[in-house]
């Protein structure tokens, strides 16, 4: 193992000794794939035939007019198969798993998107699949659990710790230290030990590469600002990845502001000052932790952003000021989602709606010559239970009550 994978002081590979040869193997396979041009072509072909790449860019005509400032464009990652950018990373790692000759994949999932994407990939490639999901998340994301199981995955409800994403990651690592010989761990975001942050960002950079070409073709210039929500940071790294050399493009990462500042109220590691540098889950970054280094509970209306750490590459870009970090509150996010649905007919996931909320705050202060691009990392219609709760829809509640009563009657009648 080499001492690599650092982005200034962030990153590294703080892994148990038993996994050292596995990480060496993974890093070699990843570097070989990067050097092999046919691999990226194979990846692009797969994504254009199995998913919907290149995903289009949509101009928000109505909201641009209403807000009266910058022209608002949206990169449509929601049109990927399984409804989110997660598919990019997962299919890329699927190809890599096949190259390494492994037969089984495991993954963690918070909201369930990454779990569904991994189960989909496993079904397509013929891998066995186990998904670790916090018991708390299993309870609130049944529709995703349903699809994972339909696709043949085993879903393990993790009852340890806070029963959310970080605990699912720990549990996936515990599986991996037993089964590394035939198993690849498909980590879902640009976090974890090297080479995961770099590798996941590489697969996701397909978003930014397409976006740059599309915006140039569409408007004849690059956008002034780009907005992406940041949980672990993979969709942000993906879209930012196409514009890293373009110093006039401002990159804005939007974290989960939850109920506002204060430990336990949010999941904003970089926009607020509640997080400190630490080492957990195999890498060094900003964590929401106490003075002893114990991880703290986080809160967000969107399960996908509800995480204690953040990509080490983004922590680095925060310190170098290459990316500006903001936080959007739960209330702002739900409003931004409803506004987008009503005025444009697009249904951004609650995660993605963080980016929309911040863009809507800033667009009116910009001029009509300026363009902004929002990464719509996923769609919300598959999260209908969560969204219906977030918007407190009484008709939906009645529907669930009626449905439950019908099931109960059916069971009683045998």
């Amino acid at each position: 193992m080499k001492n690599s994978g650092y982005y200034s002081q962030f990153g590294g590979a703080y892994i148990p000794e038993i996994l050292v040869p596995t990480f060496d193997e993974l890093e070699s396979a990843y570097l070989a794939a990067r050097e092999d041009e046919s691999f990226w072509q194979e990846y692009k072909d797969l994504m254009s035939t199995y998913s919907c790449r290149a995903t289009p860019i949509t101009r928000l005509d109505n909201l641009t007019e209403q807000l009266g400032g910058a022209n608002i464009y949206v990169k449509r990652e929601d049109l990927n198969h399984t409804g989110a950018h997660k598919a990019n990373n997962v299919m890329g790692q699927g190809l890599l798993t096949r190259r390494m000759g492994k037969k089984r994949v495991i993954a963690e999932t918070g909201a369930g998107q990454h779990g569904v994407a991994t189960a989909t990939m496993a079904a397509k490639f013929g891998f066995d699949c186990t998904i670790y999901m916090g018991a708390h998340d299993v309870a609130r994301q049944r529709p995703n659990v349903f699809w994972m199981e339909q696709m043949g995955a085993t879903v393990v409800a993790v009852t340890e710790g806070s029963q959310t994403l970080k605990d699912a990651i720990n549990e996936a690592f515990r599986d991996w230290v037993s089964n590394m010989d035939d198993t690849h761990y498909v980590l879902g975001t640009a976090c974890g030990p090297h080479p995961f942050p770099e590798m996941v960002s590489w697969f996701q950079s397909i978003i930014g590469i397409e976006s740059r070409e599309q915006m140039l073709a569409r408007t004849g210039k690059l956008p002034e600002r780009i907005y992406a929500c940041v949980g672990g940071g993979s969709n942000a790294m993906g879209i930012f990845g196409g514009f890293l050399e373009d110093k006039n493009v401002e990159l804005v990462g939007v974290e989960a502001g939850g109920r506002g500042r204060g430990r336990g109220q949010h999941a904003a590691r970089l926009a607020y000052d509640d997080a400190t540098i630490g080492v957990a889950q195999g890498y060094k970054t900003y964590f929401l932790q106490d003075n002893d280094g114990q991880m703290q509970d986080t809160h967000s209306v969107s399960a996908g952003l509800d995480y204690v750490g953040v990509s080490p590459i983004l922590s680095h870009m925060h310190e170098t000021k290459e990316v500006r970090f903001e936080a959007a509150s739960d209330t702002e996010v739900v409003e931004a989602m409803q506004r987008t649905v009503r005025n444009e007919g697009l249904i951004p996931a609650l995660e993605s709606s963080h980016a929309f909320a911040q863009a809507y705050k800033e667009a009116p202060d910009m001029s009509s010559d300026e363009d902004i691009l929002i990464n719509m990392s996923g769609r919300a219609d598959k999260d209908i239970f969560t969204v219906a709760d977030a918007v407190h829809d009484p008709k939906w509640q009645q529907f669930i009550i009626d449905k439950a009563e019908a099931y109960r009657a059916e069971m009683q009648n045998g």
Partner: protein
Amino acid sequence: MANPTTLELAIRKAREKKDILLMTHIVLGYPNFDDSLRVVEDMVKAGVDLMELQIPFSEPMADGPVILKANSEALKAGATVEKSFAAAERINREFDIPFLFMTYYNILFCYGVDEFVSRCKSAGITGCIVPDLPPAEGQQYLDAMHAAEISPVHIFTPKTPESRMRHLSDNSTGMIYCVARKGVTGKDTAFSDDLSQYLQLCRRSTDLPLGVGFGVKSREDIDFLRGKVDIAVVGSETIRVMEQDGVGAVKGFIETLVA
């Protein structure tokens, strides 16, 4: 190679009288600090030769269900790093066997690595096991440990090639901790010919005393290890006994191992 450390000398001295030593593992503050002290006392009286004291962490990635639960319960009951140091200090004052800390790197990192090591020194700790800190990431830790003459103990595994065993040994003092199998703590281990061969490789790769842990839980397991290594490490099983039969049952269990 540097001079033998306090830990290595203590192990070699104890080995003059016994053909295999027993090391046990507790999580400090689980179920509370008073019980931790009582368990240490019982273990020392029952004949344990050295002990690992785990400072609880919220993300114990390398631990299985038993120790994982002990970590989170200890934290829920209010365990802190400062209280763990205070307990270790008292334990070292009262009992005359070597004590090691086991914890995860974030505990050291957040405390300050140099400050952590100097607190270990003043608490009388003779070695540390930090399972998520490979030597390549741990230069500051290694320098501080060597300067304080406390032993950084690294881990050999059945997946570790001989060349890396030598690298790990070069960065260790005191002893080497060999995990008997893949996986996390607290699951069953097959005490087989494969294990014997692996332990022979471990023996060839270092001059330091060897301890074997992961799945060691009975007199038979220890008999298997006798003559092959220096120390048998019983970890999760003592915690399991404590959970099933109470703190008072630990002494009787240890006596069945050393009798």
